[in-house]
């Protein structure tokens, strides 16, 4: 688990990263409740956008390894590509899960009306998996870190607006609302709606399964393209 351990070290060694990874979830906790939308306080809605940024920020370490030639060096070491990738992703997932725990249970302590905090945490974790997988697939498309990051920013803006995180999908014309279901952010917003108003657990499970499917598909795309 050497790679896993050093991913942590690298992630928290960078000061900008450290602020990015710890400060934002804390800020989100204290954001007010909207009326009548979003259904949860603003910070919990924006956290969905933030998770996409965190994912690309973390996944970019893999891209840096590819650009700097570290992957080349590692490719002749007794370390498989699958092991390298899985140790990276596991470390990233743990970092993101930690942020989700801080946000959700920090909110509970602060007194935010989160209705079902544990299920909200599950939803964020499912969504994080999808976000990480998308970021992994995204970086394999680019050989330049900056280009990948700025391209992803445009992508995040698009999926946030069209996926119902910034503007409610109910305000969209019907044809646009149909397109919205294609974005993972839509399913995050749906899951949050369920947390507040839903009662059929099957519906919540369905939202999570869709997010896991996103994760699976993009994970396959991102991992089959070797990063050499």
């Amino acid at each position: 688990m050497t790679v896993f351990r050093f991913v942590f070290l690298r992630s928290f060694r960078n000061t900008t990263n450290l602020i990015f990874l710890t400060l934002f979830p804390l800020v989100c906790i204290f954001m007010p409740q909207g009326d009548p939308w979003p259904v949860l306080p603003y910070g919990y809605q924006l956290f969905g956008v933030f998770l996409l940024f965190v994912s690309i920020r973390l996944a970019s370490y893999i891209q840096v390894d590819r650009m700097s030639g570290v992957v080349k060096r590692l490719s002749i070491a007794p370390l498989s590509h699958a092991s390298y990738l899985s140790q990276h992703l596991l470390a990233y997932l743990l970092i993101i899960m930690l942020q989700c725990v801080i946000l959700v249970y920090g909110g509970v302590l602060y007194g935010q009306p989160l209705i079902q905090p544990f299920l909200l945490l599950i939803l964020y974790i499912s969504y994080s998996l999808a976000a990480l997988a998308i970021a992994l697939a995204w970086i394999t498309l680019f050989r330049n870190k900056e280009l990948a990051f700025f391209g992803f920013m445009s992508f995040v803006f698009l999926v946030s607006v069209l996926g119902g995180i910034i503007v409610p999908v109910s305000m969209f014309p019907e044809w646009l609302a149909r397109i919205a279901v294609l974005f993972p952010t839509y399913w995050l917003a749906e899951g949050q709606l369920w947390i507040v108003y839903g009662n059929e657990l099957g519906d919540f499970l369905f939202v999570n399964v869709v997010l896991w499917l996103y994760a699976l598909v993009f994970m396959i795309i991102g991992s089959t393209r070797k990063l050499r």
Partner: protein
Amino acid sequence: MQGVVKRYGNAVALDYVDLAIYEGEIVGLLGPNGAGKTTLIQTMTGMVPIERGTIKLFGQSNNPFTHANKEKLGLVTQEITVYDELTAKENLQFFAGVYGLKGSERKERVQEALAFVGLAEYADKVPTKFSGGMKRRLNIACALTHRPKLLIMDEPTVGIDPQSRNHILESVKKLQEQGTTILYTTHYMEEVQEIASRVVIMDQGQMIKGGTVDQLIQSIQHEERIHIDVADTSLLPVEQLQSIAGVMHVDVAGTRVTVISTAGSGNVDRILSLVKEYTGVLGIQTENPDLEDVFLTLTGKQLRDGGGEA
């Protein structure tokens, strides 16, 4: 490796290459940019698949890139492949860990590698604070913690100061004394002359010739090299010089024309007379061949000619 072929699209990067490296030697692989040196390294380490031929690693030709064999391989990359966020010591700990070293053994090996490359004092500094030469030395140290049996060094001295270069060359010699087999690729002739037990010359994806430095020079002893400093090189009758019987190569650089000709052919007078007809001669010098001449004779070009690496 035997009969190894590797193509990138229509470009042939390795053209039926044969290369054997024996235990305990330093093989200097010489070739200009684009000769196929990097591709050779990539194929012999299993980074890229070959299209034809066989690769035998530590006596194993059927699936040579096993974990056990990989543990015996070390690679010093041409690029500096270390983590900027980690200190020198942490970088070594990382690469040692990847090779399965743990606990006190890892600690010892890390310290040993740092001392070996002269960076023990800088163990807790990050590479961003290092000079180019120090970064190169750290890059080498990262490939040493697991004590590889075969160390492949891909142009390890590119762009560094002479002091660091000397340090690296001394380290390479010490590694050989400790029993490490080394494949050293470079386009610096003098480095190969200094450290290599055997030299292999490569060009356009082919192995041109191999042997010790003396053997290679001996193979062109029948040649002489004539340098003529002239007033105006643009007036030189290059084609006529090339057409003189026995002349093998004409090279013009700055105010100097270098002609390689068959020794004892009496060409010095002919060449000088011809040059004088067209431009003023400022000086003349003949010399015995060296490795540079070997390369020039065999490939028809200077080692540091341009071109992208294959």
